[in-house]
C-alpha cells in the first residue's frame, strides 16, 4: 500500500534524478560517486521531509545535492581515493546521419573533457545554467554567492571554453586565409 507521500516522493525522484545527478557529477566528476550522491540526497530528503516545504524545488534539490557531493568529495580527498574524471559515453545521437553523429559525439566528448578541466567555481554555475536553465539569481541562491559573481563566472567559463575550442578546431576562414597567403 503506497501512501500519498510515498507517491509524491516517487514522482519527485523520477522527475529530478537526472538533474541531481548532473549537479553531483559537476562536483565529483565520477559517475559512480555521483550516483551514490544522488541516492544519499534523496534519502536525506525522504528522512527529513524537507522536500515538501521547499518553495523552489529545483534550487532546493540543487543545494542539497551540491552539499552532499561536496561532503563526499572532501571525504574522498581525505582518504586519498578521489577518482579521476571519466567521460560519459551516453551522448545523444543526432539524426543527421551516422558520420555526422560520430563527429559531434567526438566533439562533445572533447568539450566535456574541457568542462571537467574547468575550476569547480566556474564549472558548477555553468552546469546549473545549462542543465535546467536556472537564472543567475537562482544559481547565486544555491551556491550562496552574489548574482553578479554568478554572471562573471558564467562569462569566464564560456570564454575559456571558447578559447580552448578555437585552439582545438581552428576556424575554416583562418585556414583559407593562410592558404591564400601561401
Amino acid at each position, binding site marked *: 500500500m503506497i501512501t500519498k507521500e510515498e507517491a509524491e516522493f516517487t514522482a519527485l525522484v523520477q522527475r529530478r*534524478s537526472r538533474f541531481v545527478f548532473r549537479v553531483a557529477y559537476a562536483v565529483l566528476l565520477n559517475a559512480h560517486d555521483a*550516483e551514490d550522491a*544522488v*541516492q544519499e540526497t534523496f534519502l536525506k530528503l525522504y528522512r527529513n521531509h524537507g522536500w515538501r516545504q521547499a518553495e523552489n524545488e529545483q534550487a532546493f534539490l540543487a543545494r542539497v545535492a551540491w552539499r552532499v557531493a561536496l561532503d563526499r568529495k572532501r571525504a574522498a580527498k581525505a582518504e586519498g581515493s578521489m577518482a579521476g574524471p571519466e567521460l560519459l559515453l551516453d551522448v545523444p545521437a543526432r539524426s543527421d546521419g551516422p558520420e555526422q553523429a560520430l563527429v559531434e559525439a567526438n566533439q562533445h566528448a572533447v*568539450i566535456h573533457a574541457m568542462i571537467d578541466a574547468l575550476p569547480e567555481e566556474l564549472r558548477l554555475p555553468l552546469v546549473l545554467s545549462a542543465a535546467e536553465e536556472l537564472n543567475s539569481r537562482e544559481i547565486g541562491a544555491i551556491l550562496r554567492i552574489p548574482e553578479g559573481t554568478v554572471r562573471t563566472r558564467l562569462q569566464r567559463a564560456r570564454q575559456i571554453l571558447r578559447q580552448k*575550442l578555437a585552439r582545438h578546431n581552428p576556424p575554416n576562414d583562418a585556414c583559407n586565409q593562410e592558404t591564400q597567403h601561401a
Partner: protein
Amino acid sequence: MPEKDELDRLLDSALASYADPGTGSGLEQRVLSSLAAPGAQGNTRSDVAGYRRWPARYRRWPAWAVAVPVAAALLLWFSIAKIHHAPAIQNQEAHQANGPQAPAASAPSHPDRSGAHNQTLAGAKPLIDSQAVMARLKSRPDTGPNRSTATEAVNPEPLPKLDVFPTPQPLTPQEQALVVVAAQTPEPELRALIEAEKQNGQPFPIAAAHIPPLEPPDEGAHDRQ
C-alpha cells in the same frame, strides 16, 4: 562572426548533454530501489559505503574520543586522591610511630631510677614534687557538674599525667659510659680532668708574625739588564 556562433552552438549542445545519464540509464529505478531496500531508513547502503571508505584513523575516532577523556579523568582523580590522602597517611603514620613510643619512653623512666642514673642523682631534689602537685589538685574546689561534663565531652579520656616534665629519656650509651667513668675515677683525677677541659676551651695563643717591609728595586737594575 559565423565561427563564433558555431562555437556557441557547439558549446550549448555539449553543455546540454554534459553529465546527463540519459533517460534509459535506469537511475530513477536504482534510487527508488535503494530507498525501498530494508534498512534504508536507518543505515543506508551509501552511508555504510561512505563509512567504509573512511580511512582507519577516522573510523577509530569514536574510540579515541571516549578513551582520551576517560584517561584524563582517571589521571586527575588519582592525582586528587593522592593529594588528599597524603596528609591523612602521614598523620596516621606519625600517630602509629608516636603512640607506641610514648609508653616506651615513659615506661623505662621508672626503672631507670633504680639504675646507675639514680646512683648519681640520689641526693638531688626533683624539679617538681609530684606528690605536692597532686595534693594541690585534689584540694582544688570543684566548680560544678556542668564543668566536668563539658571537660569530659571535649576530652573524655585524659592522657595520664607524668611525674616529671619533660619526660625523662633513658641514658644513651655515651652517657652511661660517662657515668661509669665518673663513678670509678678518684676525685683528684676528676678535678685535673675538669681543669684540662677548661684549658681546652681557652683561646690558643698564636705568636705574632713578623713580615719584613718590601724594599723598592734598584733603579739601575733595568738599565743593566
